[in-house]
């Protein structure tokens, strides 16, 4: 492998990893606050991709507007999921909410098969993003640079929201102690809804970039990236936004580089994430940047 090939793999890994990171942020925020694995998150990612497909290719809406519609649509779906399937179970045992999450994920997947048919559809990539240019010895398309840049800007913006605004303070407060936060006059349900909205919007952005990068949409496309992003969230440390990005990037690099250096392993590519999960849970269950979540007795 020569250096320019390595750089090619490097940009691929950076793109894949930052998309994992964006999805992982949604998992990590919801888990940090509700201690709930939002299984439907990967399906919100899928919906984002489908919405942009329908808006721009089926209904010929201009790209810029289509993107906004897709993000808003997916955000609305995320809010709806929280309102219908999770909020009635706030005081139930956590496992019940988890089963509800599995049910929702199952529902969105099958409803999408009914609504969009199970046939994968091709996404037409805008020419502007695909015009290759040379950077030293590497040939790149603008898209593969845009993906990590957008992801990092969004993640940085989110960090600002969490650490510099009142809403962010409320989120952090809920993740520490939900009851006390309620007593302080914070509207807990609204803050949780905001968390779902942010997570879903980021997942939708990731879904759109995914659909452009691997130009195809299908109803089950959210499943694997969803699981992997959750693993990335655990790897980085559940509850930490920076950890989610770090975990996503690590996972992206592990997947791309191990296949790049050992092409024979390509069939096992999807297994790496799960092996990584089991290893991290054994070695450092709190993840790279996570704080210890204490068990309440």
């Amino acid at each position, binding site marked *: 492998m020569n250096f320019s090939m390595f750089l090619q793999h490097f940009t691929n890994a950076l793109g894949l990893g930052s998309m994992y990171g964006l999805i992982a942020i949604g998992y990590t925020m919801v888990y940090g606050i509700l*201690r*709930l*694995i939002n299984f439907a998150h990967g399906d919100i990612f899928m919906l984002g991709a489908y919405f942009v497909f329908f808006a721009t290719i089926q209904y010929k809406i201009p790209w810029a507007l289509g993107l906004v519609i897709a993000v808003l649509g997916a955000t609305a779906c995320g809010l709806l999921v929280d309102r*219908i*399937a999770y909020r*009635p*179970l706030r005081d*139930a045992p*956590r*496992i*019940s909410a*988890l*089963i*509800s999450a*599995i*049910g*929702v994920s*199952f*529902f969105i997947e*099958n*409803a999408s*098969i*009914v609504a969009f048919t*199970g046939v994968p559809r091709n996404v037409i990539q805008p020419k502007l993003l695909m015009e290759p240019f040379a950077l030293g010895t590497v040939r790149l398309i603008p898209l593969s640079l845009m993906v990590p840049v957008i992801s990092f800007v969004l993640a940085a913006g989110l960090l600002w929201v969490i650490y510099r605004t009142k809403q962010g303070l409320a989120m952090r407060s809920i993740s520490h102690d939900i009851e006390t936060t309620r007593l302080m006059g914070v509207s807990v349900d609204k803050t949780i809804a905001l968390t779902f909205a942010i997570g879903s919007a980021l997942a939708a952005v990731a879904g759109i970039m995914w659909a452009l990068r691997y130009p195809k949409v299908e109803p089950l496309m959210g*499943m694997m990236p969803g*699981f992997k992003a*959750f*693993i990335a969230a*655990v790897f980085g440390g559940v509850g930490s936004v920076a950890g989610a990005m770090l975990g996503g990037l690590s996972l992206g690099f592990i997947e791309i580089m191990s296949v790049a250096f050992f092409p024979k392993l390509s*069939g*096992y590519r*999807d*297994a790496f*994430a*799960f*092996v990584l*999960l*089991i290893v991290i*849970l*054994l070695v450092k*269950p709190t993840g790279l940047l996570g704080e210890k979540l204490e*068990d309440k*007795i």
Partner: protein
Amino acid sequence: MSAERGAKKVRNRFLTVLAIISFAVFLQQAPNLLDGYKIRIMNMIAINAILGLSLNLIYGMAGMFSLGHAGFMAVGAYVSALLILTPAQKTAMWILDPIAPWLLGVHAPFLISILAAGLAAAFFGWLISMPVLRLGGDYLGIATLGFSEILRILITNLTPITNGPLGLKGIPAHTNLRVSYGILLVTLFCTVRLMKSNFGNVIKAVRDDETAARTMGINTFQTRVLAFTIGCFGAGVGGALMGNIITTIDPRMFTINQTYNTLMIVVIGGLGSITGSVVGSVLVTVMLEWLRFVENPIMIGSTQLFLSGKPGMRMVIFSLLLIGVIIFRREGVMGMKEFSWDRLFSFFSRQRGDAA
């Protein structure tokens, strides 16, 4: 008082034996009474009940949220199929890669292969339980899901042993009503005896309050490993039976959806209830088949009913059902209760009392 209780015990045992015998007579007659489709559904009910019971042991009784059932079923299905297939079938099937030579001659009769399937699945269960059972709650769920997915990817890629993505075809349809219900009966008997034994109490103690159980001197970790391994044994047996009724298996059969299916049976029936798993299996299996009608166009007069006739619709309805159950009736059909003759009798006498 104790004489009355003794008489009741004799009566209950008598009724149980009577019920089993009459059900056996029904099964004996079933091939004459029912068509092949209905027989197949009856077989699936028994297999799903075995799977439900095994997941219920892990999740309902021992409180370990496992999402790995599909992987252990896959191990069982493949082990059983590989033991049953003849060398001639095997050489004809492996076209991507030649079959591993040691595997070619391995052969075992059906029932032995089922046992081997259970043991193999139990071995894998034991293997993964060592590291992951130290985790609690949903982390355990996601780790077992991951392990199940790893098993599936291994099966897809280890072509010399598993024939890779092509799967195995031409497995003889050994599973018939006698076999499936016979094994279900054994499973039921073992589960009931297990839960009534001291080990059953220990399992429940660990589930309800691990700290307290540990204070009482229970080795909680060992208890969970044992319960998990036994549950995986059941998953392997169920997977093997399933392979022997569908007659073809491939890795795509054993995705997370397979686990969800079993999870629904356990949740709808009632977590921690043996009766519930059987009831849940009947409900889920029959309903999944019955719901097929929504995937055919439904005509009202000359117009087609909105959304009818779309493939995938029954799973939409089914997932809504699961969400509904968990939101509105979290304890499922049976809750933690079990069926007993005494309760049945007192139920009927109460009804009569109300009527009078």
